[in-house]
């Protein structure tokens, strides 16, 4: 009977390769059990990070050769850490580990067999959480933008006119957040804050047409808010710069919204999203560059 614990190489230069083959092999559980029998735990154990220390990044990129012999022997003396190490390299490891993983021929056969069984079991049952199409999506672009902008301006310019019971569906992220235009800060910080709020676009990654169009529209509302608001934190020329840029970016955003609304399949939705990503990065970069120049 094969006992993996008795196959530990005596030579240091072979130990790393052998241990890697164990981490990605079929005998790891047996190895851990045998080593536990030889090194009973007294309750005191290092964490994986304590053992591998500063070698972690190198280990994840280049394998166990990054560890010293003593580090590897320490892992073998605390064998449950081998399971932690395996999980660490499988989750965080780079291409070095993925190539090792992909190299197992027998594993490939098993994986293929599992997929054939799994594919049969995946049933076409609709998920309850799939968002239904929103009725507002049916309106022409200018109607939805004008209506939402009117609500937005009414709320920000004359809150006293609205009943406390009214709850407009205004986005609360990006430039539309309640405190997004807080002015009590130096000009560069104000611009950098606006850039950071713009990057909140990336906090959600919609992949369906409705969600993407809605999110672009929300961002576009924030743009309207920037154009129509005062920015006392900025000098006159910087305020003018901001409004002109917002109007220019607004035209790009309108184009992306139209693309999202006319997207015919998932790929075109993702292309529209990618285009919007690029615009958001461009405008945030511009704000940060302006802040750096002040």
């Amino acid at each position: 009977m094969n006992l993996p614990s008795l196959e530990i190489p005596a030579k240091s230069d072979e130990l790393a390769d052998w241990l890697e083959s164990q981490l990605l092999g079929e005998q790891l559980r047996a190895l851990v059990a045998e080593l536990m029998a030889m090194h009973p735990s007294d309750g005191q154990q290092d964490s994986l990070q304590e053992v591998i220390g500063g070698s972690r990044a190198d280990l994840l990129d280049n394998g166990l050769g990054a560890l010293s012999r003593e580090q590897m022997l320490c892992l073998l003396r605390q064998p449950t850490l081998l399971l932690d190490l395996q999980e660490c390299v499988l989750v965080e490891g780079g291409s070095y580990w993925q190539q090792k993983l992909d190299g197992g021929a027998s594993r490939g056969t098993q994986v293929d067999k599992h997929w054939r069984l799994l594919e049969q079991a995946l049933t076409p049952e609709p998920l309850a959480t799939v968002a239904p199409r929103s009725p507002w999506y049916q309106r022409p672009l200018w109607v939805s933008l004008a209506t939402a902008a009117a609500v937005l301006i009414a709320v920000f310019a004359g809150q006293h006119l609205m009943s406390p019971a009214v709850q407009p569906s205004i986005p609360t992220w990006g430039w539309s957040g309640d405190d997004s235009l807080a002015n009590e800060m130096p000009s560069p910080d104000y611009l950098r804050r606006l850039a950071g709020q713009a990057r909140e676009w990336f906090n959600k990654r919609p992949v369906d047409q409705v969600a993407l169009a809605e999110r672009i529209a929300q961002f576009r509302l924030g743009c309207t808010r920037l154009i129509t608001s005062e920015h006392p934190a900025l000098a006159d020329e910087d305020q003018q710069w901001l409004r002109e840029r917002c109007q220019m970016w607004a035209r790009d955003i309108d184009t992306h919204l139209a693309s999202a609304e006319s997207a015919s399949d998932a790929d075109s939705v993702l292309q529209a999203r990618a285009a919007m990503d690029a615009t958001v990065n461009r405008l945030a970069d511009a704000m940060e560059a302006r802040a750096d120049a002040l």
Partner: protein
Amino acid sequence: MPELESNDLPDADLAALSSQRSNTRETERAVQMFGVLYQRHSGALLMFVVGRSRSSDCDDAVQSVWLKAWQNVNAFRTGSFRAWLFGIARNHLIDEARRKKSVPLAEGASVVHGEHMDPAASLLDEERRQSFSECLEQLTQRERSVVIAIVAGTDYSEVSAQLKIDKNAAYKTMHYARAKLSACMQRKVG
């Protein structure tokens, strides 16, 4: 702009597309997207499960984990899909170990009830650990000392010095100990 291939999509997008199944066409695409996730992570998941379950249970465990991932893929948003998948696997394996209630041990050993186990400990091969421990006890003191020292990384020169035996004797002791342990484990766990 070049058309995006599914193999180029990040895991978060594939997961989101896998959760869109409001009609047959969408479901077919969802299966296709999920298949890409499967291709990327199946090898790693298999190794994770192999390291934490009996070999006879691995196939069922892997299938169960992927089915749970399919059923809950709409819950995955950001971060590492593989770490999320391993979380599902870990919980499944622990639940299975608890469900079994007891861990079969070698003859003469006490039964450990799964429900009182530390969750992580329930994934360890307690049967093999117990059996190996008993087999070690059946070695002579010298054999046991040589085996433990060699496995701990001590070289034969140092072992022979510690035990006050010559190096050839240390090699022979390890050779006989290995054979005895192998035979003993074969009897206990097959």
